[in-house]
């Protein structure tokens, strides 16, 4: 069997659980970027995000043989594992206030010096990390991970109304933080 794009996540997980190297590679090709992006945008630290991505996939490989299709959507489970690992790290940061915090994202050059896409990216990262974690999570899930409101609310264990409020407040804060970029376009 090939590991084509038409194969479902469940099928790939089941084959990966049997030690099928092609399925392992196909799952990584399909999901790693998504997992890494979620972790990096939640944590704001590329090195920590890589650790979380590795830990997440370690769990995937470890549980793949016992995966039961239909009981839960694999993508939802993957998001939940990644988010929980991110929150473990955010909690540890709070509990160890004397530990050296991760490097603050570089806010980049002043607008009048011209902005490259990478500079804007750094500004966005800084603005995201300045948000309260739950607002950041809502924006990352709905905007970057493209989850629907019901799925995102379930993952966050909040009502759809609460999700909407988190999204609104988060986006408003981002708009304010990035206002100078809009005016320099």
């Amino acid at each position, binding site marked *: 069997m090939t590991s084509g794009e038409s194969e479902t996540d469940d099928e790939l997980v089941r084959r990966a659980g049997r030690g099928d190297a092609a399925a392992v590679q196909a799952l990584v090709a399909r999901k790693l970027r998504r997992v*890494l992006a979620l972790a990096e945008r939640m944590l704001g630290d590329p090195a920590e995000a890589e650790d979380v991505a590795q830990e997440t996939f370690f769990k995937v*490989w470890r549980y793949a043989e016992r995966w039961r299709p239909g009981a839960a959507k694999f993508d939802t489970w993957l998001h*939940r594992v990644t988010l929980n690992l991110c929150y473990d790290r955010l909690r540890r940061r709070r509990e160890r206030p004397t530990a050296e915090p991760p490097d603050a994202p570089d806010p980049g050059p002043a607008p009048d010096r011209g902005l490259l896409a990478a500079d*804007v990216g750094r*500004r966005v990262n800084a603005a995201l990390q300045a948000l309260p974690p739950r607002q950041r999570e809502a924006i990352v899930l709905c905007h970057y991970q493209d989850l629907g409101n*019901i799925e995102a609310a379930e993952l966050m264990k909040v009502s759809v109304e609460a999700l*909407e409020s988190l999204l609104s407040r988060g986006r408003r804060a981002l*708009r304010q933080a990035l206002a100078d970029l*809009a005016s320099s376009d």
Partner: protein
Amino acid sequence: MTEDRFRALAEAYGADLRGWPPAERDAAQTFTEANRDLAGAILETERSLEAQLEAYIVEPSPALRQRVIDIAPRARAIARTWRWLATLGLGLGLAASAVAGAAAGFSFAPASVTRLIEGPPASSSDDIGMLADPTDDLVNG
């Protein structure tokens, strides 16, 4: 749909109506068609923010990709070892229980042991497909 509701939805879910709650999309589309300038201005504000957000790109490195692939065999081996140890532990537990039961005059194992040997019910939190909190079993590499 009122202007306030349209604005609230745009501020929460962004400029693309396809990302709005399905139950409100039709009404939002109708509002957009009936109030082109107003709806256009509201959505444009959100579109501008989203263009900025898209500049934050994350791509996995080839090295990370390879590391994630390389840990698969070890993770499977650990999972199998744990399952083997669990089975062995349960087997020993059952044997010990049977001996103790025989000594005490019972001819059957306690229900708790029987349950363990038969495995958890389908809705158990040990079932990966049903995990409520899938990281309860933390992996440290």
